[in-house]
C-alpha cells in the first residue's frame, strides 16, 4: 500500500540484520520481519498501518504513542518492536469496532475532550488502563494518571470531564 502514512520504505537493506516477530495486536496475531532497531510505534504505524498511534516527541515525554502492552500502558516510541515479540499490544484501533465507539471515545466526543486530536489516542489508552484499575476515579486521580500525556491545545479540563463521563457510562452499563 502506498499512502500518505507510508513514511519510510518497509523493506530493509540486504545487509541489515532482521528478526521475525509475532505480536498479538488488538487480538489478532501478526507477524513481521523487522530491523532490531525499529521502535514499536513505527511497527504499528508502518508495518501494520495502525496509524492511530501517534509519534509526537520520540523521547517518552508526550505520551501520544501510548499503547497497552500486556494490558499496561507504555510509550511505544521507547520500546523496540522486537521486545513485543510474543506479547500483546492494544492500540486505539482496538478500543471498538469501525462502526462503534468505546465509552471512552464517546466521552471524548460528548465532552469535547479534544481540539487538534493529536494527543487523543494516547490519552484514551492511558484512560483505559486507569478505568480498568480504578473504575470510579476522582478528578485528581484522573489528572495523576494522565500526567504522562501532554496536550498542547491545553484542553485538559475537557479531557478530565471526558474520562469522568466514560467512567459513569461504563458503570451504568
Amino acid at each position, binding site marked *: 500500500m502506498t499512502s500518505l502514512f507510508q513514511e519510510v520504505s518497509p523493506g530493509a537493506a540486504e545487509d541489515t540484520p532482521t528478526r521475525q516477530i509475532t505480536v498479538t495486536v488488538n487480538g489478532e496475531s501478526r507477524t513481521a520481519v523487522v530491523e*532490531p532497531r525499529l521502535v514499536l510505534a513505527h511497527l504499528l504505524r508502518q508495518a501494520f498501518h495502525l496509524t492511530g498511534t501517534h509519534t509526537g516527541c*520520540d*523521547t*517518552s*515525554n508526550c*505520551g501520544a504513542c*501510548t499503547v497497552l502492552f500486556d494490558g*499496561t*500502558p*507504555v*510509550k511505544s516510541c*521507547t*520500546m*523496540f518492536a*522486537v*521486545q513485543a515479540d510474543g506479547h500483546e499490544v492494544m492500540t486505539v484501533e482496538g478500543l471498538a469496532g469501525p462502526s462503534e465507539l468505546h465509552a471512552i471515545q464517546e466521552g471524548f466526543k460528548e465532552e469535547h475532550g479534544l481540539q487538534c486530536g493529536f494527543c487523543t489516542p494516547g490519552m484514551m489508552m*492511558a484512560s483505559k488502563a486507569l478505568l480498568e484499575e480504578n473504575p470510579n476515579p476522582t478528578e485528581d486521580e484522573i489528572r*495523576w*494518571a494522565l*500526567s*504522562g*500525556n501532554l496536550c498542547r491545545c491545553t484542553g485538559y479540563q475537557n479531557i478530565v470531564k471526558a474520562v469522568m463521563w466514560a467512567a459513569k457510562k461504563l458503570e451504568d452499563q
Partner: protein
Amino acid sequence: MIKLRFASPEMLVDINEIPGLDYHRIDPDGSIHVGALCRHADLERSSLLASRQPTMASAAPLVADPIVRNRGTLVGSLCHADPQGDWASVMVSLDGLVVAEGPGGKRSIPVKDLVRGPFQTTLAYDEIVVEAIAPAPKGTPAGGYLKLERRVGDYATVGVAVSIDRDGGKVTRAGIGLSGVGGSTISAEDAAQVLVGESLTAESIGEAASLSAQAAQPRSDHRGSASYKRHLVSVFTTRILTGLIRLEEEAA
C-alpha cells in the same frame, strides 16, 4: 541514550525476558533488595516500602511519569547515571549498594562509587547490575524525597533525599543525597553528619540545611539560577526534616 544521540551501540541486550529479576523484598536482617527488573510502578504501589522504607516510598511516585514508571526500573535509573536522576540520590542517602554480575562473578559497589560522571559508571563492559540494596537501618528509618520539576516527567530542577535512622529518638545514621545540582549525584556528608548522635532539633535541622546547600554545585540554566537552586536544597532539606518532627509530635 540512543534517542538523545549520546550512545550508538552496535548491539543491545534486552534483559526483560530474564526470569527472577522483578522482585523487591526485605531480608530478615531488614535490608531491602530491589531486582533489576522491578519497575518504578511496583515500588510506587509497594506496601513493603510504605511501611519499612519512607525515603524510597516517597520518591517512587515522583519518578518520571505514570506511564514511564510502568517500564523503567530503579536499577536502570542508577546505571543510567543521570545527575538529575531521582533514585541515585535516594540510594546515596541510604548508603545503598548495587550488586554487579559478570563472567567473573558478583561484586558489590556502593552507589556513591558507581557513577564516574554524567551517564558514566564504573561497571565493566561485560557486567550488569542485578540488584540494588538498601542496607538494614540502624534503628527506625525515617526520611523523604522532595523534587521540584517544571512539569511531570521533566528533569529535576532540584531533588533532595533525606534518610535517617533513629533509636530512642537519637539519630544513629543519616544520609542526604542531592539530584540535579552537580555533574553527578552529590552526597552531602557533612550535612548528614551534624544530625547524628542527637535528636532532631530546629538548630540541627538549620545547620544540616545550610551544609546541604553548601554541598550543592548548581549551575544557572533555563530551570533556574544557581543561587535559586542552592536555596531550594536548603528549603527541601528543612522541609523533609521538619516534617519528621511534626510526624513525631502527631504520633506522641
